[in-house]
């Protein structure tokens, strides 16, 4: 038995509209009468809404209705003051997004600075980043990756849709293992013996350490 495609389309429309969060094809299929072609319904719906004030978008592998991008100027009342991420946090988020799964040490290696306290925490707390597991290397460091909330926030259907990721990968710029014998000094290594909490090691250059952190965390 096949269902009327128009009916399927209407059902999907109503479900997506009513839902508080994006729905996956499976979520939809479960709610729809048996035999409904969800994929086709979504495609029809997508076409019907193209260019309208509301659009059908795929984020994190799920579907949602959202207002058209070009109408953002109207939404002054709905706009929420976003939590402003520090430059360090933004860069860390980008590195995690493009390199995941990635360890803290690898993030630091790309940035050339030790991750300040608060940078990763903020991302974890905001739910943009999550711990994924552990790298199977000595020390078994924890790896980080992005969450569905990250994809939803930036309106990305999948991680493959990250801007420029294909080009970066092709250019080898996303490889985490640097070429063998790479020996740019690791200035952090020099301080490894000291406490990892940089707030305490003020004895070397007190004002600077202080300033530096104030700056990094001043978000």
């Amino acid at each position, binding site marked *: 038995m096949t269902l009327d495609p128009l009916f399927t389309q209407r059902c999907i429309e109503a479900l997506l509209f009513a839902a508080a969060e994006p729905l996956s094809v499976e979520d939809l299929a479960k709610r729809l009468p048996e035999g409904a072609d969800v994929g086709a319904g979504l495609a029809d719906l997508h076409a019907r809404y193209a260019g309208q004030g509301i659009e059908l978008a795929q984020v994190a592998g799920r579907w949602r209705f959202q207002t058209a*991008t070009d109408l953002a100027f109207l939404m002054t009342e709905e706009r929420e003051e976003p939590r402003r991420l520090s430059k360090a946090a933004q860069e860390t988020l980008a590195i995690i997004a493009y390199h995941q799964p990635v360890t803290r040490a690898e993030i630091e290696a790309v940035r050339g600075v030790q991750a300040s306290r608060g940078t990763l925490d903020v991302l974890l707390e905001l739910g943009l980043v999550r711990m994924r597991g552990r790298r199977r290397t000595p020390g078994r460091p924890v790896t980080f990756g992005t969450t569905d909330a990250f994809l939803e926030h930036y309106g990305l259907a999948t991680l493959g849709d990250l801007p420029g990721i294909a080009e970066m990968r092709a250019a080898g710029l996303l490889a985490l293992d640097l070429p063998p014998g790479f020996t740019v000094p690791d200035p952090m290594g020099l301080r490894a013996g000291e406490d990892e909490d940089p707030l305490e090691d003020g004895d070397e250059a007190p004002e600077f350490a202080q300033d530096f952190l104030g700056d990094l965390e001043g978000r």
Partner: protein
Amino acid sequence: MSTGFQPTLDFEAAHAAAEDGAALVIDIDGYEGPLHVLLALARSQKVDLLQLSITRLAEQYLAFVQQARRVRFSLAADYLVMAAWLAYLKSRLLLPKPERPKAEEPPAEEMAAQLAFRLAKLDVMRKAVEALKERPILKRDVFMRGDPEAVKIVSSTRFEGDLYALMTAYITQRKREHGRHYAPRPPQAYPLEDARDRLRDLLPEMKDWTTLSGVAPVERWEEDPDGPSPASYLASTLSASLELVKEGILEARQMEHFSDIYLRTRAEPLEPII
């Protein structure tokens, strides 16, 4: 927010200044570390980062560090380490190659290429940050339905919670556990001395047999619930009465096990039993 420093790292300004030829940006607060400074300087060469002139970059960086030190006497070790390494790399690049390169060190050109590669890596991440900002961001550019019908469609096999939440849940409890202290209050006892004194005062009134529970000041417990318990009043009074019996000024008797104990002042005191 610290007001004394640039709250948002102003890379645009640094970048622009670096582009005015050899102009150096002294405000190192604008940078997070040596690699970020190097990247800003490298961009001023306006070439593909992988085609960078490392010797020129090294010179620019050394000049930067020198000026920065003039402005601010103490400069973080990272900057100095990088400066020393770049000076070394530059000299190796300029010097004629030794016939037999030292085995433990890669050729200088390779090290230079790797530095360029590393800068390129940081550069693409910088660009990625900008590209992400251009995305239609939820609640800034695009909006979900303002008033969903409060129907949350979550399949029953899916549930929320990630490792961070799990860790947080665990550690909050462990911390609570450490903050939790069990401090039992030592039970208050009715002092034997007080019981004895009180009983002596009561002696004149105890010509007739009186029950122990009638004598013990049990009702005090109601006035002072934090004080000794009724059992303690009873026990101390019993002990005190036995002492007085021993002294020969009080009589005590009990008809059978667990029945009431009666007390009475002895009309004629006996010789104390020693």
